[in-house]
């Protein structure tokens, strides 16, 4: 599948935003700290930015509001509805922290649940497509939720460090554990992605009873919307290297740094801020590479007609 830049940015940044917002909803950070107030604003900005970038690839963005109408059948519509609804408790929580320096557990937890539901819907857009084998699995929502939680927790640790949180080690340690869990899920996802394909050129053409089917003449000499959209190949060549880069940047670096911070919590102050910041940046870079591979490596059933 073609990895559209806008969708990669949207899914990774909004994942970070929802992860951060959901942990703020759990009241993990002191609502009176200026850093926590900034965290609330940052989470909202990341979510909003992600949503705006996701409309960039639309052919007619001026009608995007219509996408809220088909929540009964469409995961994309559900995602849109949930994204809008989730803004209510999140802005409310942000308001309470920024202007009243307090945290309301009920509103907070409602926000957390809706954040999780929104990320789940995003992932189900992909997981519900039977036409793309590697996406069509419960591992897909699991890995989206895992990455959102891990990046949100790492960001919480960063804002906690900036706010001089007295108990930094549970934040950092929790983030390290979530990073490891997220990549464990992703590794499971990659294993299942190797299953034999559901459809083949033989089943696509129904000519398998005669023998092996191979394309002799494509329908047109040049490429078309389908081959551009579903037939991306560039990354496959370097898939192994990219996967290793994703693992080192997304898992190794942040897990070691965050675990180190958890073990030596006395290294507070600017060191802790720097360490958590580097962890978040490295983690996000790793997740972006992973997300790129998620698209670039995915094989669509229609390509059976072009083989």
């Amino acid at each position: 599948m073609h990895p559209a830049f806008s969708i990669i940015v949207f899914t990774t940044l909004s994942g970070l935003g929802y992860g951060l917002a959901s942990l703020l909803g759990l009241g993990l950070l002191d609502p009176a700290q200026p850093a926590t107030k900034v965290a609330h604003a940052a989470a909202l900005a990341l979510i909003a930015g992600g949503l705006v970038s996701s409309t960039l690839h639309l052919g007619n963005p001026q009608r995007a509001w219509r996408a809220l109408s088909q929540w009964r059948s469409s995961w994309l519509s559900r995602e849109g509805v949930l994204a809008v609804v989730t803004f209510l408790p999140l802005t409310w929580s942000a308001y309470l922290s920024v202007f009243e320096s307090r945290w309301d557990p009920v509103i907070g937890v409602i926000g957390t649940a809706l954040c999780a539901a929104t990320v789940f819907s995003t992932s189900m857009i992909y997981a519900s497509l039977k036409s793309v084998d590697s996406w069509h699995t419960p591992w897909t929502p699991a890995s989206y939720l895992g990455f959102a939680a891990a990046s949100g927790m790492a960001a919480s640790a960063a804002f906690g460090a900036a706010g001089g949180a007295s108990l930094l080690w549970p934040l950092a340690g929790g983030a390290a554990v979530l990073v490891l869990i997220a990549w464990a899920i992703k590794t499971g996802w990659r294993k299942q992605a190797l299953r034999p394909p559901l459809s083949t050129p033989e089943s696509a053409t129904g000519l398998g009873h005669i023998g092996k089917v191979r394309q002799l003449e494509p329908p047109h000499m040049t490429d078309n919307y389908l081959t551009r959209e579903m037939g991306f190949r560039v990354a496959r060549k370097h898939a192994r290297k990219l996967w290793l880069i994703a693992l080192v940047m997304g898992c190794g670096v942040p897990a070691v740094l965050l675990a180190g911070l958890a073990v030596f919590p006395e290294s507070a102050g600017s060191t802790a801020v720097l360490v958590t910041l580097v962890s978040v940046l490295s983690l996000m870079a790793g997740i972006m590479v992973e997300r790129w591979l998620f698209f670039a490596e995915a094989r669509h059933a229609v390509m059976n007609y072009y083989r």
Partner: protein
Amino acid sequence: MTSLPRHNTPKKLGLVIDLDVCVGCHACVVACKEWNTGGYGSALSDQDPYGAGVSGAWLNRVHGYEVTPDGRDRVVIGEAGDARVVHFPKSCLHCDDAPCVTVCPTGASYKREDDGIVLVDEDKCIGCGLCAWACPYGAREMDLAAGVMKKCTLCVDRIYNETLEEVDRVPSCVRTCPTNARHFGDLADPSSEVSHMVSERGGFDLMPEQGTRPVNKYLPPRPRTPLAASSAPAADDTADATGFFGWVDRMLDRI
């Protein structure tokens, strides 16, 4: 409304495509584009139409496949068993369980309750492209100029069009096909001509494992006559030449 009709539609209008007969002339491809660029919805645009990289939206495409008996790789068509070339037209199959419809977030994609035709309401389409991802057959293509999704309408603006002569009230591709490889009819009616063809020739679904339950059916190529069965031209043997040719043959042998 992008929920599918709750019950089987009373009619299932669709195509039956005969892979034995198609010669891959692409007449249906051109006829489809010609009719539909001026018909239902926005025009079917081309990008860089006179350049080297021309590409555009088409609702019907003809592929060509080489099919070789199992276990063999790259054989010369015609020399090995049943190896053969199959021309393969492909357009929307108007699936009963159309995944392209249910994923649509706007309600632009829908399946008609009465005849099962799958259509896009272009005024509602936001051009997100998700339906093209959901279709395993590659039957939907985005129009890059209009930013909306295009697909086969089964020429809904012909088949019910009483201003056309009766003979023309079939999809443009069916009307055009010079070899009669494409047939249009109601596949829910077991007594229709298309239903008879399907049952007699063993019409089949494309990618049944995708669970889309396509309405359109394909008729398999008939078994080909093995090359060995056709009399090969006798190369140098003139033993049975008689009369004038026999005389010429003998004279030339002597020189």
